[in-house]
């Protein structure tokens, strides 16, 4: 390699196309956070230093609430998306079950993030009756299946949890309709909206969902902080006990600097959402068109209809028949282009994406995909850089796939996901 390298052998100039994993911190968020880092005050303390820290927290809470049309008292700060998902799912389930022992069922989907899915499996091992409802080939929840599952025995349902937008294929779920079906029977609804904030309009009050997860690092805020937006009347069993912070829902000293960064990021993301969505959608569409030209048999997963209402604007999930996703990732990484196979990793061993499998892809197809996700720092040059190398990279990955006997059938239309 002739390019200058950083540590870990990568070319120094990186083309980052993995914003769904995390996105660079916005300068305003860095500034807001930095301004608080040297302040010494526990927001729970009663003296002036404590009050100063408290003020930062409360102003941040108000800013976040405003941005998503919730009340400030509905915003509960946590350590991030995973904690918020755990708190919502476990907390709502246990509270609902305690109020009425018949409520042993939890309804969700097959395409949830692992922070929800693994929590559901854990509860299932301890007696919960978990039903994962099917999605269509576009990855969208089949509402009829939800309706049937609820109406079969509404008194037995503790809660419904459906993500607002999918992190792998970008499909936006019909949350309003989910809430209508559940609320007709008094069943609370939680939604993991971490991928949706700042990408599509998210209005907590209008959608009338009962609990909503968001996290800072997906919107250009710091790692380690997020929120569960929770209707004031909703009963929930806490995970963390202690000082009683966040109205006893989530004890623990609040990270005021991180919260300040979180609020700045959310405000900016939501304010800029319309132009951001239009800009990245255009870049994304350009990426798809030109990658298709370079690799004619590449297949777009998820929702073929790329309008913003149905799909996240920055998401481009592409299957490359005959190639192993992790070979593609490695070859692109060596050329400075960073993306994701979108699948969970256990010790770094790629697994077939459960989302793609749920959408009807076979094992081989589910391991042949890459996720490119564009963000607030993505430029036309980034797209150009990817398009330039994708052809040769796919050729090499295909040769390697053949060498290792990847996929028993030769690549062709039969191996691709038919999007309907």
């Amino acid at each position, binding site marked *: 390699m002739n390019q200058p390298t950083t540590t870990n052998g990568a070319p120094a100039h990186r083309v980052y196309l993995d914003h769904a994993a995390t996105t660079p911190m916005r300068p305003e968020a860095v500034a807001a956070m930095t301004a608080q880092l040297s302040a010494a005050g526990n927001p729970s303390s009663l003296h002036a230093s404590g009050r100063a820290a408290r003020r930062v927290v409360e102003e941040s809470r108000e800013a976040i609430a405003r941005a998503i049309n919730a009340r400030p008292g509905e915003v509960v700060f946590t350590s991030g998306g995973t904690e918020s998902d755990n708190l919502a799912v476990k907390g709502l389930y246990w509270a609902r079950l305690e109020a009425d022992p018949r409520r042993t069922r939890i309804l969700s989907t097959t395409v949830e993030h692992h922070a929800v899915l693994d929590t559901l499996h854990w509860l299932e091992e301890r007696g919960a009756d978990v039903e994962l409802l099917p999605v269509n080939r576009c990855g969208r929840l089949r509402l009829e299946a939800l309706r049937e599952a609820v109406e079969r025995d509404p008194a037995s349902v503790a809660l419904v949890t459906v993500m607002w937008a999918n992190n792998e294929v970008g499909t936006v779920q019909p949350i309003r309709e989910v809430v209508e079906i559940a609320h007709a029977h008094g069943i609370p609804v939680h939604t993991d909206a971490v991928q949706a904030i700042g990408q599509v309009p998210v209005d907590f009050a209008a959608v009338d969902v009962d609990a909503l997860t968001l996290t800072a690092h997906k919107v250009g805020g710091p790692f380690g902080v997020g929120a569960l937006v929770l209707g004031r009347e909703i009963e929930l069993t806490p995970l963390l006990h202690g000082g009683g912070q966040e109205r006893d829902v989530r004890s623990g000293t609040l990270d005021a600097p991180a919260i300040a960064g979180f609020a700045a990021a959310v405000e900016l993301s939501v304010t800029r959402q319309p132009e951001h969505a239009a800009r990245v959608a255009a870049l994304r569409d350009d990426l798809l068109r030109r990658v298709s030209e370079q690799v004619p048999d590449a297949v777009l997963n998820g929702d073929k209809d790329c309008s913003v209402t149905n799909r996240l604007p920055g998401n481009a999930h592409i299957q490359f028949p005959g190639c192993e996703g992790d070979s593609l990732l490695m070859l692109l990484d060596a050329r400075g282009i960073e993306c994701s196979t979108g699948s969970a990793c256990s*010790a770094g061993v790629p697994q077939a994406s459960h989302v793609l499998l749920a959408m009807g892809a076979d094992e081989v197809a589910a391991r042949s995909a890459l996720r490119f996700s564009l963000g607030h720092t993505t430029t036309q040059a980034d797209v150009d850089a990817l398009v330039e190398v994708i052809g040769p990279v796919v050729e090499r990955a295909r040769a390697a796939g053949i060498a*290792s006997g990847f996929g028993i059938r030769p690549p062709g239309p039969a191996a691709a996901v038919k999007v309907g």
Partner: protein
Amino acid sequence: MSGGVDSAVAAARAAEMGYDVTGIHLALSRNPKSYRTGSRGCCTIEDAGDARRAADVIGIPFYVWDMSDRFHEDVVEDFMSEYAEGRTPNPCLRCNEKIKFAAVLERAVALGFDAVATGHYAQLVTGDDGLIQMHRAVDMGKDQSYVLGVLTQDQLGRSLFPLGDSRKEDVRREADRRGLSVANKPDSHDICFISDGDTAGWLREKLGVGSGEIVDHATGDVLGTHEGSFGFTIGQRKGLRIGRPAEDGKPRYVLDIEPVSGTVTVGPREELTVDHITAFRPRWCGTVPAEPLEGTVQLRAHGEEHRATVTVRGEDVVIELHDPAQGIAPGQAAVVYDGTRVVGSATITTALRRQPA
């Protein structure tokens, strides 16, 4: 990069030699444990983490390749079927032959790499004839040329063994100097996919019990029964549950295992000695020996060298030992050496006594 000290230092040396190095951890186990417990077993999630950290320290990219299906087919199933046939296989040779320097190498070359480097202790030199030669390592206690005896010239042409010229203690010291935290990690030994070291128990679980009789080699008398001939090996003395001692009071050893009936034949130590070995499926590191070769053979991992005359007839190899040896098990590899140079290897089919005692 297994997560052990040898592959970590090998990667560091390769990077320093100027190669463009990428660290690969092979996930070979279908159900990896999270943590290493002692020195048995390999490729736990903790091992993968150790390998990743070593790659970070060295400054090279790192990925995990899942070879667990191929490994199961080519190594684990072969191991089971060999034992089921009454033979004693060596899975490490099979892994090198089919996985590390085959499946891994093929994928690597297809992705644009030139060679596979490992932490094996062996040395490669180019001979005057332009062929690559593999020789024993400098550290005879750690020499692993035996398990590499399955490599062909093509495979050797795409291999790199940076540790061949070093002693193990020096490698550990170097790891420490380089800031590789695996410097003090214990070496793994025994079979990597049998993490508790209980091969007999593992075989019983996979192959079933396979009970049968224990008979005397001379008289054919039934001396006892056993519950599982799998796991017995030629030359074994322990674990034979025979009620009465031999007439001469001397210990008895396993001489033969007949897998279908499960009959295990035992006899005195003298009956174990052999001097005429046949082997098949040879793999040559360089040219095939045309004339009978006066060299040495090693007949098991960590075994001694035996002076021998080796004659090759196509796919069959005949090895005449100059001095008799004991406890040679069919299924093991006979690796042929010409001095320190590895000539090749073959799988032992029979071991007999030709010369009278």
